């Protein structure tokens, strides 16, 4: 059985982001980019499933401009067997378009499980996994914090982290699983694997090859920073505090 893992190249989680002067988005020039943390967790889970003997191959896929290849190389260095890069423009790649591309790739590769991170840390959409499951008509188990596979019965038992606590679902394979933070701790890319990764193949697809149209109905109008918090002041007496609460903050 093959496992396909979708990964995304995003601004590094530890970077302090700034909004571009023209308010069209976040500044990404000269900023450190790396693999989305949830995608790392997804890839780690796929690798563990393969190491446990439930799968034969892990394929990492990513879509976007040429720099995506760096992220795919990291994925290969972690242990993925193959990678696929879908060449697409940087802007305008919204979750529905990504879901359509993934559906096309699933038709090509025919994996038994599609694993993704639950959301990307740059847009926080949390939509792609659900949409692709809908397009493929596959069952979905999102926010996974534990995945247990049953090879004979071809199903997966997944613990989901939901607002009310933990929910356990049983899904038939093939299925879409999206990973949450507590599923696992991704491994480091060790030197021997980094060296092996240099010889692993990265296949390139163009959007026309997959016959996917990514025209979107969405348009980002403006991106602004949240309003800055005003500094607090120290008041000198209780009377002054009451006065401020009453007349300035209007809470009493």
């Amino acid at each position, binding site marked *: 059985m093959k496992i396909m893992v979708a990964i995304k190249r995003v601004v*590094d*989680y*530890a*970077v*302090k982001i700034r909004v571009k002067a023209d308010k069209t988005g976040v500044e990404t020039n*000269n*900023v*450190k980019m*790396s*693999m989305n*943390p949830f995608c790392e967790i997804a890839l780690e889970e796929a690798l563990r499933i393969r190491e446990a003997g439930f799968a034969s191959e892990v394929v990492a896929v990513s879509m976007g401009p040429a720099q995506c290849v*760096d992220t795919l190389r*990291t994925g290969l*260095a972690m242990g993925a067997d193959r990678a696929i890069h879908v060449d697409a423009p940087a802007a305008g790649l919204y979750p529905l378009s990504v879901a359509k591309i993934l559906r096309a790739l699933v038709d090509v590769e025919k994996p038994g499980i599609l694993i993704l991170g639950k959301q990307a840390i740059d847009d926080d959409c949390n939509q792609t996994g659900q949409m692709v499951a809908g397009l493929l008509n596959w069952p979905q188990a999102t926010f996974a914090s534990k995945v247990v596979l049953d090879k004979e019965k071809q199903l997966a038992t997944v613990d989901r982290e939901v607002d009310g606590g933990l929910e356990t679902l049983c899904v038939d394979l093939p299925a879409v699983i999206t990973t949450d933070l507590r599923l696992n*701790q991704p491994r*480091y*890319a*060790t*030197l*021997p694997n*980094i*060296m092996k990764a240099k010889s692993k193949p990265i296949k390139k697809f163009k959007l026309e090859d997959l016959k996917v149209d990514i025209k979107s109905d969405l348009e980002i109008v403006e991106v602004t920073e949240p309003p800055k918090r005003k500094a607090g002041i120290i008041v000198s007496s209780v009377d002054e505090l009451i006065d401020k609460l009453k007349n300035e903050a209007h809470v009493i």
Partner: protein
Amino acid sequence: MKMEKWRAITYTLLQHSLKKNFHHPINPNFRSLTRSSSTSGHTYAFGRTCERLKPTLAHKKWNIQPCVHPLKNCMSHHPLVSAKIFSGNICRIQCRYFASLTTKIQRNPLFSTINSDDISHFEKILGEKNVIQEEEKLDTVNTDWMRKYKGSSKLMLQPRSTEEVSQILKYCNSRCLAVVPQGGNTGLVGGSVPVFDEVIINTGSMNSIISFDKVSGILVCEAGCILENLISFLDSWGFIMPLDLGAKGSCQIGGNVSTNAGGLRLVRYGSLHGTVLGLEAVLANGTVLDMLGTLRKDNTGYDLKHLFIGSEGSLGIISKVSILTPPKLSSVNLAFLACKDYFSCQKLLMEAKRRLGEILSAFEFLDSHALDLVLKHLDGVRNPLPASMHNFYVLIETTGSDESSDKQKLEAFLLHSMEGGLISDGAIAQDISQASSFWHIREGVAEALMKAGAVYKYDLSLPVEKMYDLVEEMRIRLGSVADVVGFGHLGDGNLHLNISAPQYDDAILAQIEPFVYEWTSKHHGSISAEHGLGLMKADKIHYSKSTEAVQLMTSIKKLLDPNGILNPYKVLPPSLVS
């Protein structure tokens, strides 16, 4: 059992000290004092005439341990021993905890003690809020980070400007009040806390950034700015501080400069002697010495700032610093590597300097004992190379301007080293959080050692080939009694030798000192690479400096601080200075 003996001894002493006739020879009970002491025991000698005790102590060759640490356990609730009841002139003998066995320091009788006139004078200069006398607040500032040294200062002052520092010092000098300049109190040799009742001058309130030149990267700020805050300030402008150390969250730039702190990036950016462009310092008599230049080159006369850099607060209090900050380069890569022996680590260093060249920004090493301690005592830390335990681990960081070419360079270098057998395994951090976790391992060794129990800390500069030999010799000397851990800035030839034991024990100390110092001296190394001399090594300077040099240092000290009020008992041997 000990409590009873204590009560008897201190009661008798109390009787003696309360007597008006202070020239009474110190009590015949002294013999009982000596008997009751054991290596883990502790005694506390009171009395005005300390000199009498000296010969007896020297004869007994015995460690009197300072009042705090062990006392906390059994004496804190004992009313008789509370220091409060001893009003007026107390003379205490304070013997260093676990340094050399026969050194004792006496409080210099020439120093005055604080009285209420002094307090009101300070309150007039600084305002009531900045004159601190409360016990709980003084408790923390009297104790150093390692909790090895504790002073008994009754007063802490928090000046807000150079002018206030100048007025304080002028007054203290006229009254002959000893002072201790204190910044973040993260020093590791007891240089930042009082030995007796010196007045603590804390620079924490002088924390404004005065100016920053975006083009040249020259930053001018007050001495009390915390290093981490400066790093974040510069980050928004695209610059970084030329030094970085584990204590950055608390240490202040004034203290860093006073101790000539080294840190993790010295191999790339050099020492503070090169990056500090100017200083403003206040001398013992209150004179403000303005050397706050912001010029890269200024060859006009003797460059006095170098005297103050590394003087550990004994020549003047640094109030402002002007420092050259390097631009922040976008491409940072970090690799955590494993080597099978120390020889490979050395060769790796040579190769790194040659092949990584200008992008190399840090080269650290730790041995397997250090990694074990970190994994055991720190939370949220995991071994980057869990496959097997290796003998040595090396952290190599590169900083450059081109992400892809740097990464290629690093990978090519690592591949070559692996094929050459220098590296047995390694991992490269793929994002900033992975890089922070690698650094956390190296930066966390000191903290892990503190959590493991008692630690004897040595900071030595040695020729790179010899560095680990000392660790191995210490392992042989100590056997299974203590765990010898070696780590440090291999790129600068700086070994942090730490010996971890379940508790402090003089027998262990006897095996360590003076052997470590003599070994270092024999190999022409430095007994204090970056930590400074402070209190811990105040009389050890002769291991690394010639008599003539020390004599000249003493003359300079006497010239700049004739009354010796600045950070007394530290840096230079007390016998020479008084």
